[in-house]
């Protein structure tokens, strides 16, 4: 893709974004909407600058929880998927656990998890994130490991490949795009999970707790600044996964840039 065409692709969403921003800034004032209900973008940016110090600390803390949770949940999900794809018994044992983890109302579970690992520890929120992302990672990885072209399996059989070779040379590469799909879902879930978890306790310098306490004290401009950061965090992680995907599996359809 050339620079020009990339710019052309970015133009429509950028335009919409700017128009919305302008309407927000000036429209709200014109309609006489009260500041605390919906602060104007300029007010939020001002709060961002004003609170920069604590917001920076809070962002780092929450980011640590998100990354830790992604690492633990991602590793467990991938390992479970390998076991489930290999042994029927493991699949029968693990898939229901995954479904159960996915159907837990995280709002109900977060306070309990906070008690298990103590609210002061970031491990609590890592556990919440783990519960949230385990299933999407596991299901996607499993699909990638098992949904292999039957003809490719016949080809491996014709080459007298061992099971380990089939895994290494066929199933694992085949699963990579699926794992990245799972990771993309997981990044946004992880930010939500960490912040929801923080609502039920933790140090003050954490995005979730900050949002909650500032909102209680009617400092909505501060709360909005933190929400903006949380949003940026989610998008940033998503883009990061996208970038890693491009580098890791350049052969995949989603990464192909040349036009045939």
């Amino acid at each position, binding site marked *: 893709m050339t620079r020009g065409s990339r710019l052309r692709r970015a133009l429509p969403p950028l335009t919409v974004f700017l128009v919305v921003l302008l309407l927000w800034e000036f429209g709200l004032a014109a309609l006489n909407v009260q500041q605390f209900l919906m602060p104007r973008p300029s007010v939020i940016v001002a709060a961002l600058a004003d609170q920069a110090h604590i917001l920076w600390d809070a962002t780092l803390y929450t980011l640590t929880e998100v990354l830790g949770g992604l690492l633990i949940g991602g590793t467990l999900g991938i390992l479970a998927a390998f076991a489930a794809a290999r042994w029927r018994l493991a699949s029968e044992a693990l898939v229901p656990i995954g479904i159960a983890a996915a159907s837990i109302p995280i709002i109900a579970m977060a306070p309990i998890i906070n008690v298990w690992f103590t609210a002061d520890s970031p491990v609590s929120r890592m556990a919440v994130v783990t519960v949230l992302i385990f299933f999407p990672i596991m299901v996607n990885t499993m699909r990638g490991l098992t949904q292999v*072209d*039957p003809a490719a399996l*016949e080809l491996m059989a*014709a*080459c*007298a490949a061992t099971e380990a070779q089939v895994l290494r040379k066929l199933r694992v590469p085949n699963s990579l795009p699926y794992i990245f799909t799972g990771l993309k879902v997981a990044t946004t879930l992880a930010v939500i999970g960490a912040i929801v978890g923080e609502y039920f306790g933790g140090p003050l310098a954490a995005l979730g707790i900050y949002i909650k306490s500032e909102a209680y004290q009617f400092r909505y401009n501060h709360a909005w600044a933190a929400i903006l950061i949380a949003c940026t965090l989610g998008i940033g992680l998503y883009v990061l996964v996208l970038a890693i995907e491009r580098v890791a599996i350049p*052969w*995949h*359809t989603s990464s192909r840039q040349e036009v*045939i």
Partner: protein
Amino acid sequence: MSEPVVEVLKASKTFGAGEGALAALQEIDLTIRAGEFVSLIGPSGCGKSTLLRLIGDLTPASTGEVRLNGKPAAQARRAREYGIVFQAPVLMEWRTVQRNVELPLEISGVARAERTERATAMLRLVELSDFAAKYPWQLSGGMQQRVAIARALAMDPALLLMDEPFGALDEMTRERLNLELMDIWRRTHTTVVFVTHSIPEAVFLSSRVAVMSARPGRITRLIDVDLPQPREAATRNEERYFELVTAVREALHQGGADEATAAAEGLGTGASTGEGEEDAAARIRAEGYA
């Protein structure tokens, strides 16, 4: 007469068991000798792909025996004595063309230097040297199928199994690849078993055509193709070529008539041989390729 490479001895294949059993192949006898090019032709569901999979030990025979180079087919497969090309190219999209051709060599533990050398030679054979560093999606369908052929030949097998390799290609590409395949066959002296449902293709390529009929799958006629070698584009204009095309077509229709008779007589197709789940899976696969 040269050594037999493929010996199919009274081989039958039944998918499923009891009421729902499907006799895919019934008592097939077929001997293919070194250097032959034998086509299996017949209507959909006649079991030609299943017969090819029996030869390659990709599905076991229900009864009877299949031998390759004098060994049981399973043993020959484990010794990697044949190469196979499917209807789809089945290339690994994460591997370059070069590394796709290297795959069988890699699996059998050939050292890197030799792997590169063999794959390079094979790509030269199919005239794709310039595309070694490309990924499969950057190639046309015909080129992808040539990569699959190069991969099948990488281990220098005595036997090449081809399952409708050009079935998904347009007529022009198919005719060109037929010519190229003839060239490769002459140069490698490989024995070929070739499944097709195209009569002109079977006649043009083969030294013998095995005509099959369906339900149960049987070989109804073996037709020697006595067209002179080498086969070239001009071969398609020879009178003898048209005669043989007609002969194969008639044999195919004859087979259809036989099939009607067989159905009328209710020949035993429900033989219970007690297959398990594996064969049901194999049947689903086989049907997918029929």
